[in-house]
């Protein structure tokens, strides 16, 4: 029971804030990014071009972005959460409309330096806005179903849009991350059960909205050996690559599946496959271990934070990163259908790198401002 007077710590200088970032987390992120550079170097048969060098530059820019995000006052993010969400949603609608008008299947906005995919940004924006929304609710308010309608819309609106694109992976991530936020906010168990039941009812309807190739992917997932040269090819070749890597792998740049092009998209969604082929079970477990360490950091940062918004945000970002890693690796291992979700910090791609580092910037921000106390609505 503190008085309203000591709700805030004194404002820190930018330099002090920079020095107070979580160096361990930064080191972990850099280590994973370096593994990514090595894999992209291998994917290009031992060349920095065309992927590894670009990716390194992007990582460098992203670190600056992350630092900037981390040093901005946490209250700023609390206050701007709705605006950021609304802006991202508008961008998402914009590319959707552009696509519908017939400009082709472009799902990005060309910013010159990178091509920005709003759907990717939405993954973070959605977590941010939910953390903002739930941080202001009292446990009593959370029990009221009407209070759950706005956040549900915040999740299903963008999810529906990317589903239409069609981007099954992102829709899946948005829904699952949103669900996790609801769960963390303390929504009652039975409501999830009801939602799941309703969702089960929706599946046959949703199925009709899936494109043929998406349906094929699900069929193929259910029985990949059925059509080894057709739709099941990617999944099967990926499993062959991972399995043939064995305990210690075939050696750096020696993955026959990856280098002889049996592996599709080896520099993006299937990069974990290549890593598991060249570095074996050991390499795969080390990488999963590094990610696990990051998740542990995320939980630790959340629990160190004194603000409910900070905790929800840090946990939301952590769940989000976990979903990236899990969906991507489970997909390449043949545990779930093939969906387009990149492996954070490793897969080649500008937006994903920027989004992921923006997310870690927010997490870092929570860490830097761990002792900041926030009232409802961000006002002190």
């Amino acid at each position, binding site marked *: 029971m503190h008085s309203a007077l000591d709700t805030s710590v004194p404002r820190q200088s930018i330099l002090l804030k920079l020095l107070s970032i979580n160096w361990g987390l930064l080191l972990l992120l850099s280590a994973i990014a370096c593994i990514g550079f090595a894999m992209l170097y291998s994917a290009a048969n031992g060349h920095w071009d065309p992927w590894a060098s670009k990716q390194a530059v992007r990582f460098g820019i992203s670190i600056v972005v992350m630092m900037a995000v981390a040093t901005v006052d946490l209250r700023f993010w609390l206050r701007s959460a709705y605006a950021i969400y609304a802006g991202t949603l508008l961008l998402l609608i914009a590319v959707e409309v552009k696509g519908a008008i017939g400009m082709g299947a472009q799902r990005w906005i060309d910013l010159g330096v990178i091509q920005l995919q709003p759907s990717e940004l939405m993954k973070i924006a959605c977590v941010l806005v939910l953390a903002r929304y739930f941080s202001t609710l009292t446990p009593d308010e959370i029990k009221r179903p009407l209070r759950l309608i706005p956040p549900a819309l915040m999740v299903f609106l963008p999810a529906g849009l990317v589903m239409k694109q069609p981007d099954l992976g992102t829709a899946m991530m948005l829904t699952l991350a949103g669900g996790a936020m609801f769960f963390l906010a303390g929504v009652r168990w039975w409501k999830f059960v009801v939602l799941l039941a309703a969702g089960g009812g929706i599946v046959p309807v949703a199925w009709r909205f899936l494109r043929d190739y998406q349906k094929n992917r699900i069929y193929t997932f259910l029985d990949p050996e059925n059509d080894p040269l057709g739709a099941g090819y990617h999944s099967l070749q990926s499993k062959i690559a991972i*399995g*043939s890597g064995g305990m210690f792998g075939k050696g750096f740049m020696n993955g026959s599946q990856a280098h002889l092009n049996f592996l599709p998209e080896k520099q993006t969604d299937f990069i974990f496959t290549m890593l598991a082929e060249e570095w074996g079970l050991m390499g795969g477990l080390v990488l999963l271990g590094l990610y696990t360490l990051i998740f542990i950091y995320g939980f630790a940062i959340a629990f160190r934070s004194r603000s409910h918004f900070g905790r929800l945000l840090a946990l939301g970002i952590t769940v989000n990163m976990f979903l990236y890693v899990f969906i991507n690796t489970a997909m390449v291992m043949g545990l779930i259908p093939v969906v387009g979700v990149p492996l954070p910090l490793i897969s080649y791609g500008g937006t994903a790198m920027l989004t992921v580092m923006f997310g870690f910037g927010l997490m870092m921000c929570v860490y830097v401002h761990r002792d900041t106390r926030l009232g409802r609505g961000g006002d002190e």
Partner: protein
Amino acid sequence: MANNDKTRSKLLTRRAALLGGGQLLLLGTLAGRLYYLQVIQADRYAMQADENRINIRLLAPPRGRIVDRFGVPLAENRPTYRAVLVAEQAGDLQSTLDAVATLVPLSDNDRRRVLRDIRNKLSFVPVALRENLSWEEMARIEVNTLELPGVSIERALIRSYPFGETSAHLVGYVAAVSEKDLSGDDPLLELPDFRIGKSGVEKSYDLNLRGTAGTSQVEVNAFGRVVRELAREDGMPGQEMVLTLDMALQAYAAKRCAAEQSAAAVVLDSWTGDVLAMASMPAYDPSAFAAGLTGAQWKALIENPLNPLTDKAISGSYPPGSTFKPIVALAALDAGVITPDTHIFCPGHYELGDAKFHCWKHDGHGSMVLRDGLKHSCDVFFFETARRTGIDRIAAMAKRFGLGAPIGIDIPGERSGLIPTTGWKKATTGIAWQQGETLSAGIGQSYVLTTPLQLATMVARLATGHEIVPRLVREDGVMTQDGGTDRIEAPSLNIAAKDLKLVLEGMYAVVNEQGGTAYAARVMDPAMAMGGKSGSAQVRHITEAERDRGLPKALQVPWKDRDHALFIAFAPVTNPRYVCACVVEHGGASGGGGSAVAAPICRDILLEAQKRDPVHRVPDQPYGSATLASG
């Protein structure tokens, strides 16, 4: 408020713990899946990865050569060159094609085909620009490869037959594998450019000549592009087949036969059964078959009335005519129905019931014994002899000399000929044997049919008294410099030596005594003198009415209706070794009989054979090539 914060905080901690636990569980699932894929199923996936990347390619072994007894190649592998283009390395296709066209002729058709092939194939697959480049064309392209990106020369082996049609039927030819050849399980047959033997020695010894496939393990990528070779196992090259043939003699025989429109000659070494020459003319160019015949070429071959595709030496069935008489004589002596001194009178014809059988000499030969009958080839003498002996005893004797059944020469297409018996006629026609038919058979007409190879075998057995079997392949490899070959041990025919001697003396008289039918074809050098027997085989029955009008001159009769000219011979008479049988269809260009047309051919071939005999050969003269060049 504070209470609210506390409960909210506790709830969040609890929920976060649950979420974290759930995440750990899922991470554990991932680790377990990795372990399952990479440890438990590792072998299976490693195998599948290898199946993905490793392709086994067949390497065709070089086909074995076919050489004559002295090692002169009759079938060999000649390199051919073709220019190929790899589209992805070529840059601008049109300018590359233009550049190639300045070096070698490239028709508009070629260009269209190349562009079409490039469109239809993956960009790294070589597309043929021009096949069968000459050495000069190949060199022009090789020199300019720097200016021709993506263009390279591929070398392949093509079957070539240096002697062309001279040994065509014997050596045979190779051609592309056809549907019905695919029954075997040799994977080589599946290779697109593979050739297999289709006739002659190329066919009968195809498996020996073919060799066994080698394999090359190559690493390929997902598009089938070869990345590198991992392992190579060379196959076994085909075996070299050494024939008993003497190519110089073969070339000589072929030349003599070719001069007579349609003819065949077989030369055997009667001590060993070696086929020294076996010519059938006209013939065809086997290299054309290996390269692939055009429709017009094929049509010309099958429509030629002289049947160039048929090996007349083994597939031509001819009535032996008077060359059959030695067999009739031996059968009669063996049966005891005549003796060397039995006199038979020839008035120029022979009457049997109402039928009248004419001797070739209208005025008759007068009274003769067996030796004279052979020397003058008196038909009436052999009408009577055959009648006394009976067809079945003649047939039995003929069979001992290799007639009436395939000899078993090891090239395909041999015919069996025909030696009739009473049982055979009853069985095939249902009509009983007529005695008149025995008379005709006694002079090698009626149903009697023989192949030139059978006739040569018959002489070899006459000359030796042993059951000589012709052979085409030498088991001992190429002949050594001394060149000697010993007599082989063949089972005896068990014919009384004095009977054989008498018949051989008769055949000596045919050639070497005045009045003998082939006296004009005698050899002047006594050391190389030959004995022989002429024959003229009627192709068409001569009616009594025609005979009354007087027989027309041969050249007045259409070629198809003229008699075949035959001769069989052995030499030297002092110690017979080389034997020859020659059939000139319809008497050849001059339309002459056996003694006039076929006997000189036999004489010349036998002289050639004896000159090439190691005994007569000039020392230091290399085998093979010398005579070949002059012949």
